[in-house]
Structure formats: structure tokens, C-alpha cells
């Protein structure tokens, strides 16, 4: 049979089946839509957080705090040595006074903490910017360790440490999210399988007639496969639409805070949108194939 004619027939029959048992089909579509909505929301959240973390990683610095009492000459010598490695793109000097002013600006509610000391309470430092593309991990690590041992240096903060920790947290959230989505999708597959098995049961007499006149199994099952596929695509599409509308409505309403900005940053990429619809379609098809695998029809 010409493939296009067969698909045309499968599609028409699938639509008739969906229309005929629209209530139970709606349950299957809703289950898939809810699963993919939750999955999509997690994807959106993790995607935006990940973008921010990558931004931080690109902007990461090594902060070298000087010991109190380091002479200007020793500090200059250290600054000069900090420029040596090929990955260093710039060294900014922050005096103890500038450090205090910055603290007061960033944390005004606790600014008193740095007041009333006889001398500057915060140490002077060098902020070393580097190009992540040029970093050789082992050499970089050795360089950081050598800085920690330098006599002029009181402490070294490597931004990569907390960025890596944040990435670890993101991976855990992603893993949990993935597990939740898998469980929900499996539930959706079972729902679709049950719905299609029920539809096939409703049509069992017709299916018997089809077999008697010489229809192949593919011709008999094709409409059910397409039905599952359509349910999955509908579920994925509804989830995507709900996510988009939710994002659209939420963005202007969230307070202009840093975290809100991160979470509502940008909508899912086209690739992620296609992933959601494809997952829906796959869940629908798997449900249909699973429901008709045995002698269910």
C-alpha cells in the first residue's frame, strides 16, 4: 500500500478514535502534559541557572589577600609575578581602604562591622582575572598552591572552588529532576497504554472483521500507534504552551531581584522545546506499542 495513503488512513482513523473517546484521551494527554510541564519547568530553571554559573565561571577570578604589613615593594614584586602565567588576563590592585568601601557599599546593613577599628580591618588584595580558555588545569592548580605558600600572601580565594560546588548542586538538582520526569513519563506511558488498550477493546469486533478480510497487523494497529503519537504530541504541545504562557506572565511580575532575574531569564531554547514535544511523542508511541504488543487486539 502506498505509504502516504496508509498514513492518511491511520491519521484519519486516529482522529476518529480520539474524538470518539475524547474523555479518556484527555486524561492521557493531561498526564503527559503535566509530566512534561514539570520536566520543562525544571529544564527552564536549570538552564537559566546553568547559564548564570557558566557566566560566573567565565568571570571567575583568583583573589590574593596580602598579609598585614607587607611593604609596597614586596606587593609590587608579587603583582609583577602574578602577571607571568599565560592565562592571566589582568591584575587589579584593591587597597585595604577600597576593600572597606566596597564592603560598605555591598552590605550597607552591616557596614558598622568595619567601623571603629584603629586600622583598616580588611586586607589589601590583588584580583587576578584569567582566560578560562587558556587555563591548563594542573599548572593552574600548582600556581594557586604556590601563591598560597608565598610569604606576602595571607589567603587565596579561587572562585572556581565555589563555582564547582554550585555546578555540583546543579547536577544534583538536574538528576533529581530527571528522575522525577522519568517517573512521571512512565506513569504517562502507562496511562496512554491503558487508554489505547481500552480503545482497542471497544473496537475488538471491528478488528476481528479487519483481520477476516485480510488486513495486515500493521494496517490494524497503525491507527492506534498514530493515536498514541498524537496524544503524546498534544501533551508535549500543551506543556510547552503552558510553560511559555507561564513564563510570559511571570516575568513582569517577579521582583527585580538577582535570583528572580536568573530564574526567569530566557525561555527554553528551540532544541529544548523540540525535546519536550519529541519526548511527548515518544511516550505516546511507546505507550501505544506497549499496549498492543501482546494479543490485546
Amino acid at each position: 500500500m502506498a505509504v502516504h495513503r496508509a498514513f492518511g488512513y491511520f491519521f484519519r482513523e486516529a482522529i476518529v478514535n480520539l474524538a470518539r473517546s475524547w474523555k479518556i484521551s484527555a486524561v492521557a494527554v493531561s498526564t503527559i502534559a503535566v509530566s512534561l510541564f514539570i520536566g520543562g519547568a525544571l529544564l527552564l530553571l536549570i538552564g537559566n541557572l546553568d547559564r548564570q554559573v557558566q557566566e560566573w565561571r567565565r568571570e571567575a577570578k583568583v583573589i590574593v589577600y596580602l598579609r598585614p604589613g607587607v611593604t609596597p615593594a614586596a606587593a609590587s614584586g608579587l603583582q609583577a609575578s602574578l602577571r607571568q602565567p599565560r592565562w592571566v588576563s589582568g591584575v587589579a590592585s584593591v587597597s585595604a581602604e577600597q576593600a572597606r568601601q566596597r564592603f560598605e557599599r555591598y552590605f550597607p546593613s552591616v557596614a558598622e562591622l568595619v567601623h571603629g577599628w584603629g586600622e583598616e580591618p580588611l586586607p589589601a588584595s590583588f584580583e587576578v582575572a584569567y582566560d578560562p580558555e587558556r587555563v591548563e588545569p594542573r599548572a593552574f592548580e600548582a600556581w594557586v598552591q604556590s601563591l598560597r605558600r608565598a610569604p606576602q600572601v595571607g589567603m587565596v580565594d579561587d572562585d572556581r572552588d565555589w563555582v564547582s560546588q554550585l555546578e555540583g548542586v546543579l547536577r544534583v538538582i538536574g538528576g533529581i529532576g530527571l528522575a522525577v520526569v522519568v517517573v512521571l513519563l512512565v506513569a504517562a506511558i502507562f496511562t496512554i497504554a491503558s487508554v489505547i488498550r481500552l480503545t482497542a477493546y471497544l473496537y475488538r469486533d471491528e478488528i476481528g472483521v479487519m483481520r477476516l478480510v485480510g488486513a495486515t497487523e500493521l494496517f490494524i494497529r497503525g491507527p492506534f500507534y498514530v493515536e498514541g503519537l498524537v496524544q503524546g504530541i498534544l501533551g508535549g504541545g500543551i506543556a510547552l504552551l503552558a510553560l511559555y504562557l507561564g513564563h510570559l506572565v511571570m516575568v513582569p511580575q517577579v521582583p527585580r531581584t538577582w535570583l528572580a532575574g536568573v530564574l526567569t531569564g530566557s525561555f527554553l531554547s528551540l532544541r529544548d522545546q523540540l525535546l519536550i514535544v519529541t519526548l511527548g511523542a515518544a511516550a505516546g508511541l511507546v505507550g501505544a506499542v506497549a499496549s498492543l504488543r501482546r494479543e490485546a487486539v
Partner: protein
Amino acid sequence: MIHFYRVSKHYPGGQRALDEVTFQIERGEFAFLTGPSGAGKSTLLRLIFRQEIPTSGQILVNGRNVASLPRRKVPFLRRTMGVVFQDFRLIPRKTVFENVSYLPRVLGLDGQRQKRLAYETLRRVGLAHRMKAFPLELSGGEQQRVAIARALVNQPEILVADEPTGNLDPEMAREIFELFLEINRRGTTVLVATHDAHVIDRLDKRVLSLRAGRLQEDSSIPGATAARRMSGVIAAGARPLTPLPEAVGG
């Protein structure tokens, strides 16, 4: 065309539906299959279109060994035959036209050919004017004619009917048998299971008579029909057949 050689069918629990049944129906022949309820008529027909598989023996239908036919090839066997049932087995949610054009659609014919075939076949059974009706809007006789049209639409070589007039009044039953005769005159082999003795006598065709799963009479054996008519007692013995070779290809 249809060749049974020592065919038995036993169901789980030991029930013997058919027991060592042997007969042969030639191309273009018209035969009745008769016998009391439970004699095995329906089982025998189901074996022909491979809804059942024999427990033992061999069945050849148009040169194919039906018993050993792979499952995926069964639809292709069924496309060479038309099957008609007592309860019509039409699809109620589809129109008469859609019921009849289902097989052409399965075969992938284009819309125009589907329409032409379905129309011509419906015209042949006198129902071209009811193409758009749904089965439940038709009388029993009309529904059976639609079922016959569906069975004929692919111009099958064999037509198998299981009690096709069981649900019809005598006048409608007569019309249906006239249709079968006409189909047979065009060259289709026809095998009809019925226990309507009046029709069997009137049409004077070959009769295969089953009782308790055994073939008790084959009227193609000279004198058998006369003996049955005269005495009302089923004559014993079946026409002897040449055994099939051991391996028959499907």
C-alpha cells in the same frame, strides 16, 4: 481448490471438533456443508480461512498449505477468499460503501478505484442505491448482501459462508442463495455451511455432511444423494482421496 486430508481439530479439554476429515472441492464447484449443531461445520470453515489451526492433517487452499502458513502471510491468504457469516459482521459506524471498500483500501488502491470497485460490487448485489446508509439502517437481507459484497469486492477465488441465511426469512434466504449461485456461475468456488435442508434439496448441489466431527456423507459419491433423499439416513463413507505428499509448500 480446497483439499482436506485427514484433518482433525481437538480443543483443550479433549473435545473433538473434527476427526480425520478428508475431502476435496474443485475450482468452480458449489458445495454445501451440513450437519447438526456442533457437528464441526464452523470449525471446518475457520480452518479454511486460518482462524483455527488443525491439530493434525493437511489443508490445501488454492495450493497453499494453510496449516503451516506463517502468521504474517495469513492476511494474504484471506484476500484470496471471501467470508460471509450468519451475523453479517459489518462495522456499524462505517457506511455500506466504507464497509465494502475496506479491503481495496487495505490493498492500497487509490480512491477512484476503491469507489469503482465498491460501487460495481454493490450494484452486483443490488445495493448500489444504499451506499451511504449505515448497516443498522438496513434490513437483515440487505445487511447480508452488503456482507457478500464485502466478500466479493476483491473478486475472490473462494467464497465461504457460515449459515448465511440463519437470521433471514425464507424469501430473503432464497435471494441470498440466488446470489451465491450467480457468484458461482462466474467461476468462484462456493462453500456454504447450512442446515437448511429445503435449500439443499432444491439446489441439488454437492453436499458434505458432518456429524460429531466426522464426514459422514459426500454427495459427490455416485448414489449418495439419492440414498439420502430416499431414506433420510445419512450415507456413510467419504470419497477416497489420493494422500498428499508429506511436504507441501505454502
